């Protein structure tokens, strides 16, 4: 590693509406360096990289990239082509390979001029083999990508970037899909590549690998760079504190004696297609007047747990009891009938039918209710009146209750969902990432409503990747990791942070 600066992000800011995704973030990258970009989900890592790649236009700030001679030159922002020409390559978390083509064609795809009729496949193959020899990255060039393992596909993605002579490589959560052995191989390949002069930015939220394989660590939190440290000076404790933050803003809340259990999961297992929707032998109890916070890094089984409580997911074993009633038919309708209110993680995808009106979306969960229909016919006046009342009570702003729901902003969509859920006085509430992507005001409103429901006697399961949120709202904290739930028995953010990273069982 030399001290030759190769990339410099200068005060990049990006706002989406009232949400600040990045606030004056500056970073520097040197030749042959591995820079780890660390942060929780929603901390702004991906937004930052998307600005570097020209996918987003920053509101403020600039980027300088070194040219072949090592002189820093400003990069034209907002143009992916400019980033490519400047020698920046990115490997996304979700691969962008054509599964029916072999590795060679995938690597070359897009780098040949369209007007060229003959393809220099032999030349391309020689170049790729040279890269493979230098870096130790190996892939079967003649095998269709669809038949490859995830690790091999990722090597093809990296080769694809290297084939374009990148000097800066960005890897977005490269180990999320790899086995530990594959991850180790990847890191030794990265080591070889940096010795050749490549610089790497490496996005992750796994402390251990960051400490083992990077030179420099930058931590983002809520869109702000909260710290940067040479890896040699860092340890897990320091990094964990940076990631979860030391400041606690206590939401005013009164202590409450938990009542009778409203939700009991006993030895529940869910067999999913991947880790993110798998649960292994999970048990939990939520009582009235209690908020149970589920902390964890995304993709550790939260979707399975949420699906289970929503009624969308069928367990492979174990029992679910909602307020003394054993759930045998796993369908959202059953859970709604038993008094479970659900705030979905992806409010646009699962929470609303965007093409239908706000008023219709407000009654979509109670179409059997005689207030909403009689003999199969909708009571339009009652539905409108209900919507007007809820919009006023929950401060849902937008072009009116008869407008399509998709015209509402994210915060107002969430308020609409809150109105729909809380108006039914649910016994149990599942709040899955209820403040993700919301501005401060809307997020505070969500917190206030949850505490209100708790005071009324509801039990609440709060799933969140934002440890601040969990600690400020939850009466009890459990950590989800690798499909297993562990009682935290502590409110120490460092200890919880380590449990989230799977470092402490």
């Amino acid at each position, binding site marked *: 590693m030399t001290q030759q600066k190769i990339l410099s992000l200068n005060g990049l800011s990006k706002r989406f509406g009232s949400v600040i995704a990045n606030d004056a973030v500056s970073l520097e990258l040197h030749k042959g360096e591995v820079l780890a970009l660390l942060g929780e989900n929603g901390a702004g890592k991906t937004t930052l990289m998307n600005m570097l790649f020209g996918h987003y236009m920053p509101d403020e700030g600039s980027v300088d990239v070194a040219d072949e001679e090592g002189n820093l030159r400003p990069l034209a922002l907002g*143009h992916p082509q400019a980033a490519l020409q400047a020698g920046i390559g990115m490997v996304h978390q979700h691969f962008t390979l054509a599964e029916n083509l072999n590795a060679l064609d995938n690597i070359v795809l897009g780098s040949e001029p369209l007007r060229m009729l003959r393809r220099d496949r032999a030349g391309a193959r020689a170049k790729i083999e040279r890269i493979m020899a230098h870096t130790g990255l190996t892939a079967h060039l003649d095998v269709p990508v669809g038949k490859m393992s995830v690790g091999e596909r990722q090597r093809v993605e990296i080769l694809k970037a290297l084939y374009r002579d990148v000097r800066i490589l960005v890897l977005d959560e490269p180990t999320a899909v790899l086995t530990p052995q594959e991850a180790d191989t990847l890191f030794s390949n990265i080591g070889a590549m940096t010795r050749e002069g490549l610089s790497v930015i490496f996005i992750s939220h796994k402390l251990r690998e960051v400490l083992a394989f990077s030179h420099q660590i930058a931590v983002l939190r809520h869109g702000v760079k909260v710290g940067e440290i040479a890896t040699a000076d860092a340890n897990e404790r320091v990094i964990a504190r940076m990631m979860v933050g030391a400041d606690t803003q206590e939401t005013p809340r009164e202590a409450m004696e938990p009542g009778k259990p409203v939700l009991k999961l006993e030895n529940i297992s869910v067999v999913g297609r991947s880790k993110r929707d798998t649960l292994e032998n999970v048990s939990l109890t939520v009582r009235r007047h209690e908020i149970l916070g589920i902390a964890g890094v995304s993709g550790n089984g939260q979707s399975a747990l949420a699906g289970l409580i929503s009624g969308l997911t069928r367990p492979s074993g174990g029992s679910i009891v909602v307020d003394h009633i054993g759930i045998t038919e796993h369908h959202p309708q059953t859970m709604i009938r038993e008094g479970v209110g659900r705030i979905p993680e992806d409010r646009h995808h699962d929470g609303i039918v965007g093409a239908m009106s706000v008023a219709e979306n407000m009654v979509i969960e109670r179409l059997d209710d005689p207030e909403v229909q009689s003999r199969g016919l909708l009571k339009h006046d009652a539905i409108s009146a209900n919507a007007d009342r809820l919009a006023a009570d929950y401060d849902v702003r937008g072009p009116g209750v008869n407008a399509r729901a998709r015209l509402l902003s994210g915060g107002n969509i969430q308020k609409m969902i809150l109105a729909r859920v809380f108006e039914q006085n649910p016994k149990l509430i599942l709040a899955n990432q209820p403040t993700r992507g919301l501005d401060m005001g809307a997020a505070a409103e969500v917190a206030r409503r949850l505490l209100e429901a708790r005071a009324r006697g509801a039990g609440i399961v709060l799933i969140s990747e934002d440890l601040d949120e969990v600690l400020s709202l939850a009466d009890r904290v459990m950590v989800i990791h690798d499909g297993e739930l562990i009682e935290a028995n502590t409110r120490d953010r460092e200890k919880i942070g380590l449990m989230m990273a799977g470092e402490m069982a």
Partner: protein
Amino acid sequence: MIRIEPRQAPSRLMTLGIPVLSAVVALALAAIPLAFAGAGIATAYQEMFKGIFGSVFAFTEMLTRATPLIFTGLAAALAFRARLWNIGAEGQLYLGAMAAVAVGAGAVDAPGFVLIPLVILFGCAAGAVGMAVPTVLKSRFGADEVVTTLLLNFVILIFLQMMLEGPLKDPMGLGWPQSPPILDQGMLPPLMDRMRVHSGFIIALVAAGVAQFMLVRSVWGFKLRAVGENAAAARHAGIRVNRSMMSVALVSGALAGMAGVSEVAGLKGYLTADLSPGFGYTGIVVAMLAGLSPAGVVVSALFIASVFVGADSMSRAMGVSSYLADLVVSMSLICVLIGGFTARYRITRVKPLRGEGA
């Protein structure tokens, strides 16, 4: 650089005006091949107009032609609203027609007020079964209903030919593959003396009205729209998506079956393998032109029937090919699809940023 961005909300004027404008543009575009065919454009369109509105007979012929198109158009529109791609209305039409002659051509001897409802009931049921099969295959095994409904059309057509050579063959038919005629009292009564337009047209209008009402005002319609627009959210909200799909499938199949009943028991009287010149497929065009609105289906069915009937009479008078009608219909569909796109998206020119090409 051109950028395409979604409009906030398509205006009412646009949603209503674009189909009309598309029809006009399509007719204007059709003038080009007409000129190539060597016909005077003005006279050609005059003949076409006369062929539709020139006489009571011409007009009732147009209504007669529109009747099955309203039924198949509704079948497509309702199914498509739920994102259930029923391409099998043609086959379901023939199932309905077969059931109609099986019941109506002598198997049951009853007075008209019993027999007519019975013929309709069996025809609709047969069509519904025809759509239920692919829907079960879709919800159970994930079989793509576009493929299954489309291919079933051919299966049903071959089945029809088998039936017309076997159990449904008219013994008095001089060996022709045709069914015995439906009993006189089983026929849908004509609406006017000496004209072919029959009460099936009234049934079609009522069906469209009911479908429109149910779609907007009923819980059934609410669920159907929710499932079609966002199945994930519908399911999350407790709607039984498969059940909703099945119910719309049954209604869609029944409507297509009714098209067959109406043709065989309203117009022809007996069943042959060329009962439908593709009414099932044209119904898809009707539904798309109508923007999948049941009320709109009536208008677009009348428009397409007019084009077909008008082009027929134009081709007779001017000696140009009647395939021109197909051309106008296809061009209006293309125009409506382009028009629909411009209603939903705004196309703007963006100035390229300076400093490009680093």
